């Protein structure tokens, strides 16, 4: 592909990994701050913290909506095209019943999701477990298939960096951790290692000059990530246009994660592999 010329011959492994490692450090600091303030690395959405989410397709302005729901604990109104997304805090059953009938009166076509606090908390602890198990499982597969420490660790580190950086950006731009974005993060764990596996395979199992093998792997790998990016971008655009919030968030997380994946595969992972091969590892 002529668009990007991948030539890293003149850079040392240290130079290659310095930028991603700096970003990783900043991301880790941001997540630590978030854990210290909220108890979770990524701010939990209504799925996990409890509350009521309402989706309405309307041309009403934010002010009109806010004043209509003045009697209820409305926390936030966000909008996307014609869609308005309302978030309400926790309320008792009576209040909730009256809220649903208010919604039905004015916005009969709304979507309502109410999650109780205890259920959210249960989901939250399971979500964290799922992420951890998923990551450990992926690492085990990688180590079993490569059976050499440094290349396998490089892949796992790149995947870890993808996660951490994506989570940090989610916090910065305000995408909460919901069931949907959790699914997206898990997809990233699974899919982000595709190009790393290809890269490691090409470098360790093929004959030839290192730089040529790297360039060849990049040639294939960048297309792989681009196709997934293209699919995610299509979802992102359509879901923005059609105000489908959960898909919007899933595709946004995928886009962010895949962009970081390009960096982490072709700088972090390549940097470590280059160092490993130059030290005499591999062939």
């Amino acid at each position, binding site marked *: 592909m002529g668009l990007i010329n991948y030539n890293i011959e003149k850079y040392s492994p240290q130079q290659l990994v310095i930028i991603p490692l700096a970003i990783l450090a900043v991301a880790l600091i941001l997540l630590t701050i978030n854990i210290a303030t909220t108890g979770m690395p990524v701010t939990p959405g209504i799925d996990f913290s409890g509350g009521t989410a309402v989706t309405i397709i309307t041309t009403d302005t934010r002010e009109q909506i806010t004043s209509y729901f003045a009697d209820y604990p409305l926390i936030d109104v966000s909008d996307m095209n014609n869609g308005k997304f309302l978030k309400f805090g926790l309320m008792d059953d009576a209040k909730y019943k009256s809220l649903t009938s208010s919604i039905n009166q004015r916005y009969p076509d709304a979507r309502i999701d109410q999650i109780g606090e205890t259920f959210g908390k249960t989901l939250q602890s399971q979500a964290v477990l*799922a992420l951890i*198990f*998923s990551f450990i499982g*992926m690492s085990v597969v990688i180590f079993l*298939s490569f059976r050499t420490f440094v290349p396998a660790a490089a892949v796992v580190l790149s995947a870890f960096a993808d996660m951490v950086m994506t989570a940090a950006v989610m916090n910065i731009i305000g995408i909460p951790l919901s069931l949907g974005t*959790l699914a997206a993060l898990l997809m990233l764990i699974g899919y982000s290692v595709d190009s790393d596996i290809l890269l490691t395979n090409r470098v360790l199992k093929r004959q030839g000059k290192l730089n040529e093998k790297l360039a060849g792997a990049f040639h294939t790998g960048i297309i792989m990530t681009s*196709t997934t990016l293209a699919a995610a971008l299509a979802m992102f655009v359509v879901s923005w246009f059609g105000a489908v919030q959960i*898909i919007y968030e899933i595709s946004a997380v995928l886009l962010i994660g895949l962009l970081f994946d390009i960096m982490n595969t072709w700088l972090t992972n390549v940097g470590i592999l280059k160092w490993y091969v130059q030290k005499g590892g591999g062939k």
Partner: protein
Amino acid sequence: MNSKELKALVTDWRVATLLILLVLSVIVIYPHIDEQGHLASNLQYGLDLQQGSWLQLEFRAEVVGFTTDQPLEAFVTNLSKKLDTEVIVVESTNPSHLEIRKYYTQAELEPIFTSEKGKLTSYQQGVSKPTADLVKRILETKINTLGTKDAKVNTLTGLNNVARFIRVELAGVDMNQAQEIVGKQGKFEIRIQTTGNQTEHVLSGDTITSVQVPSQEPAGSDNWGVGFTLSENGAAAFRAAAIKYGATADPANHNLIMLLDNTSVYSAPLSDDLAGKLQSDTIRQLFASTGTGKSGTQQATNLEIHLRAGALPVDVTIAGSGGVSAPLGEHYKIMMLLAGIFALIAVGFVIYYRYREPSIVLPMVLINASEVIILLGFISLIRFQMDLPTIAGLIAVLGTGIDQLVIITDEILHEGKVPSPNLYLKRLSRALSIIVVAAATVVIAMAPLALMDLSTLKGFAIITILGVLVGVIVTRPAYGRIIMQILSK
């Protein structure tokens, strides 16, 4: 490609498998125009894509671990009295746990256990799996008798086999209706046969104070039934009616009939033993036997539900609820269809940009699309309800599935030369080995979600794993065969 080559290609088992699965999938999905002229198919949609509502119920009960030096039976009976609720020994766990069918906090339970010379060793809100299954059956029976067409009840069981939540999904019903249906109890009544087909009212359901789980009477025999307890007034009324209509003197001609919502659910005479006892005394503890063997057990299970008249053995609170209106669901469906089409086009463009060769790009995109069709076939077959995250997963399959086709193509085209058949096979297997590892990571990454009951994400994870498997087992090998044919020209 001449017709001979084409025939060889189509009859290759890898390609043939793909084609057969593709045809079967289309048949299973069954896209057609329905009577109203709308495009319809066998695909099932989750509640965020069609009108409906869901309720998440939380059990007001707990499962606790315990130790005691007292005889188990006495210990449980005493606890049950003190706690004023049913206490059940859960034997499916080792060591045994106790299920307390009323909500107490751990701090409230500890002193009570201590006073009964026992010790509380663990505490978990929820119910045991058998109880959760019973609640599920009761809710299903109730929803079915109300004629709601499309309902789904799922217990969410944690890793420790304690179920804390149960989820009810009702298609085509709005949220207020859903709450009514779940909260509503049936009308239960016991009548007695007087003369011929005539019957008289004896009791209504509110005089039944508790219903036991199905058991054998006498214990250890194969004679199944359900025990239940009447209130003082109920027992008095029962005795009065039995004597008045002659059931105590001539049980055989005076069946007792149980009705739920005016439908007979049980009919049997008094046992001679009970008839004799009723002459002299009121009896509160009754046992309705249902016969022996498997059918006896099954009938006992059903009778238990009927005796409860749709009331749950454990109190529940609503822990969450939601619903989508019909127009919004329709809107989501259209948007997701668009997203899928756009994703396919976008992926096609990226591939075209790279290879610039329609004879490579076309098979790739077609294989990619066929993968999604086969997946949709599976989804229709298992009547899986697609929701928004599942569709996002399917669209992601479009992007990642083609990755693996790129790996195959590039490995084979390595150094720009078309390889000899031997070299070709070597390269294909190298490509497949990369793909298998990549696929394994996705499967493993999704496994926790598929195994956990993380609400709606379970389905998403299962579909993603299925997608990967279909890719590795069916479409990749077929693509390898097709691309060889094309490149060897």
